[in-house]
């Protein structure tokens, strides 16, 4: 594990009004790694992602603690430099967008464009690559509002990928997707070069595809490590309040989590 750190979060805290949302959160993501951020509703997953994405995504509110992006203190990074470095897809993305898929993907390239939005050769190539990686070629002239939920999510992902970020922050990217689309999205992420920090409720996908899983509970990191170390019946009972059976997938040797009933 000598791969360079893409993201290093130390002692992250965030308070919304009088409610403490995040407390002493420590997280890291190394190059090329897929990390899942799991935990019950309200655990602070979305807020943690938004803190990394930048203060402007939180409406200008600030957090405590430090965030390093590729070795640079994020607090000293300019917004445009940060935008070239990381891609972010929040949870609720507009479904009524009248832009075409191609236009939407070009919007994601914004941080790299020249003065007055000048589009260079390499920008066009990045957009084409993103469209191809997400298998959007045939849909490029369709409007985003006319796509199915799965297609639209892929279009937004392509939009984030077109900026060729080193780190992707995804907030429940598979929550509205069927089995096939969810798997295909994870395949795209797995084969891409960007490191990924992904908030999700799908423990199965997290265990199947992610290198490490961080469990957030009441704004704190309760456990962080390889899926089979972290996803235990004790932890699921404590964090989610459920009794779970954990079996091992013989083909991948990864854990499969089956919640069976509420914990007493």
């Amino acid at each position, binding site marked *: 594990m000598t791969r360079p750190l893409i993201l290093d979060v130390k002692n992250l805290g965030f308070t919304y009004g009088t409610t403490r949302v995040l407390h002493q959160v420590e997280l890291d993501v190394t190059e090329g790694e897929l990390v899942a951020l799991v935990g019950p509703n309200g655990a602070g997953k979305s807020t943690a992602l938004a803190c990394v*994405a930048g203060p*402007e995504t939180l*409406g200008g*509110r600030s957090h405590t603690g430090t965030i390093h992006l590729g070795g640079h203190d994020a607090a000293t990074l300019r917004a445009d430099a940060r935008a070239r470095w990381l891609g972010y*897809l*929040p949870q609720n993305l*507009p479904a009524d967008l009248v832009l075409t898929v191609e236009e939407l993907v070009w919007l994601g390239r914004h*941080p790299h464009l020249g003065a007055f*939005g000048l589009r260079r050769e390499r920008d066009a190539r990045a957009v084409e690559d993103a469209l191809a990686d997400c298998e959007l070629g045939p849909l490029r002239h369709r409007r985003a509002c006319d796509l199915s939920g799965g297609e639209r999510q892929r279009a937004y992902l392509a939009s984030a990928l077109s900026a060729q970020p080193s780190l992707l*922050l995804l907030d429940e990217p598979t929550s509205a997707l069927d089995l096939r689309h969810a798997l295909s999205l994870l395949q795209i992420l797995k084969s891409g070069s960007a490191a990924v920090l992904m908030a999700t409720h799908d423990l199965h996908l997290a265990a199947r595809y992610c290198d490490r899983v961080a469990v957030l509970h009441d704004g704190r990191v309760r456990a962080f490590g390889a899926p089979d170390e972290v996803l235990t019946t004790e932890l699921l009972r404590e964090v989610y309040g459920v009794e779970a059976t954990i079996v091992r997938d013989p083909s991948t040797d990864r854990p499969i989590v089956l919640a069976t009933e509420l914990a007493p």
Partner: protein
Amino acid sequence: MSPRAQGPLMAAAALALAAVTLVLCPLVGAVSLSWSDVWNGVPPHADIFWTLRLPRVVLAGLAGAVLAVAGTVYQAVFRNDLATPFTLGVASGASLGAVLAIHLGLGAVFWGVSTLPLFAFGGAGVVVLGVFGLARARGREQDPGTILLAGVTVSFLCAALILLVQFMADVGDTNRMIRWMMGGLDVVGWTPTTRSAPFAVVGLLWILSRARVLDQLLTGDALAASRGIAVRRERLLLLLAASLAAGAVIAFTGPIGFVGLIVPHAMRRITGPSHLWLTIGSAGTGAAFLAICDTIARTVAAPTEIPVGILTALLGAPFFLLLLMRGRR
């Protein structure tokens, strides 16, 4: 044709339409004018052209462009199809200023501008700044919903105050107030145009320079912010630019409805949603639309002039309904 090719073409067509309108509309009226008379300075035709017709058509073009572009900005910033340049209370603030000026009967003149438009612009400015102040005081962040609510609330407050002033005014003044609030372009000379133009032109250019920011705002605040857009600052400046430009224009014309609502919607179907072409297209079409409406308003029942605000809705609504039906397929 691919959407990317259509945008610039349609924006150019809208500008061409505006140019043709601005050339032809001044020739039409109670007295028909010809270019040769105007060119050769034949009185009184040349005077009618230069001091009555042309200033009026140019002001109509300026107002139409500003109202349409301001509408484009409001609809993008609030992500709301029903937002208009008047949503934040610009029209009600200006109207309150205007009825106060009429009621107080002040006759002073500053910078070549009489009290009424000054009060109207002042009213618009006070209301817009007040709305932003309210939104800022209420929450630490300025979310569009709060700004919108504050704008609507202040509009209602102004409407009540306008009624109060009208109630206290005598019949003649009340008539003038109502007439002003119908909107009209019955100006003489260049003063209204030259006084509102600085705000209008600076506002329009600022908005045009932020076209890519408006595009980003379509995908929501969080996504736009993650791409390096200073969302709150950009939103504030865009709304200020649009509101002050609209305020400067309606200080002289009165509130002219419909243009700011319908032109951006119609243009979105024609140029596509990219804001560079949408803004240019809206400016051109808004200018042409209001200039044509005003030409009809002053000729159809000549020598009586119909308030142009009535005509914009009468002519625009059927056209827009047609567009809606065709778009549905």
